[in-house]
């Protein structure tokens, strides 16, 4: 590691808040970008499955 201690890494000689905010914002945004479609895909699959199963049930009842 380039820095001598964890507190040096955190403060970055006064530039810490700017650098850590940038990395924080980056990870928050990409975290949301990755999680949102995965979550939406999961809930869409569940909804579609319920719909297909309900449809099959009504079709079998009609027969």
């Amino acid at each position, binding site marked *: *590691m*380039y*820095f001598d201690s964890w507190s040096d*890494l955190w403060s*970055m*000689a*006064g*530039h*810490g808040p*700017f*650098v850590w*905010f*940038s*990395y924080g*914002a*980056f*990870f928050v*945004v*990409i975290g949301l*970008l*990755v999680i949102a*479609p*995965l979550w*939406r*895909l999961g809930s*869409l*699959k569940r909804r*579609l*499955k319920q*719909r*297909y*199963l309900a449809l099959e049930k009504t079709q079998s009842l009609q027969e």
Partner: protein
Amino acid sequence: MAWTWFHRLGSSPWIYRFSGQLLRYLLPLAIVLVVAGSVWGLAFTPPDFRQGNSYRIIYIHVPVSVVSLAGYYVMAIAGAISLIWRLKVADMAMRVAAPIGAAMTFLALLTGAVWGKPTWGTYWVWDARITSMVVLLFLYLGVFALYEAYDNKALASKACAILSLVGTVNIPIIYKSVDWWYSLHQPASIKFTGGSTIDPSMFYPLLLMIVAVYCLYTCLLLMGLRLTLLETEAKTAWVKKEILGES
């Protein structure tokens, strides 16, 4: 024939399954690369001789900026393909690329502003580079909003494709803005022609982060595409088979 692979790009089930398999490896790889590149850039590179530690923002700012520009070409080319060949997957890719590109452009502007404060003494200036990046953000948001504004989705896709294509004129302007106009923004450190003005100890982690964010962008595009495919083709037999076959 060698060209038969091209026809698969028009096949929704093939794209859904192939992208699912690809994501299984590419998404973990992208996450590992992003984390590794960030740790390398934050803790294992020397500080800049003039900017000190604030320059470490470069490992976020440059990759997201590069991908926000490249992402616009992705959106515009997908728009052109959907306009010319009526390929519905291309139309979906164009729509999916808009919010991802907007997020990348937003991050580029945000990290640039935060980097500007310790370096230039101000968060914001209305110079050529920054203003043209704001225009890029509005172009992305414009394509996204335009699609939502139409009830007739076929017409909406056409309008979005045309807006994307017209907007491509902004990309070379952004890229060359630091050379064409006097700007606080520094010129490019990495050059395709001629020597780069960045030390290898800083260049390699930057290169890693650029590759990582490209991988991540590809993953986001594929995830969005898979979601849109299922949503729009929910009534087809292949989606039903896909959903019921999984359990």
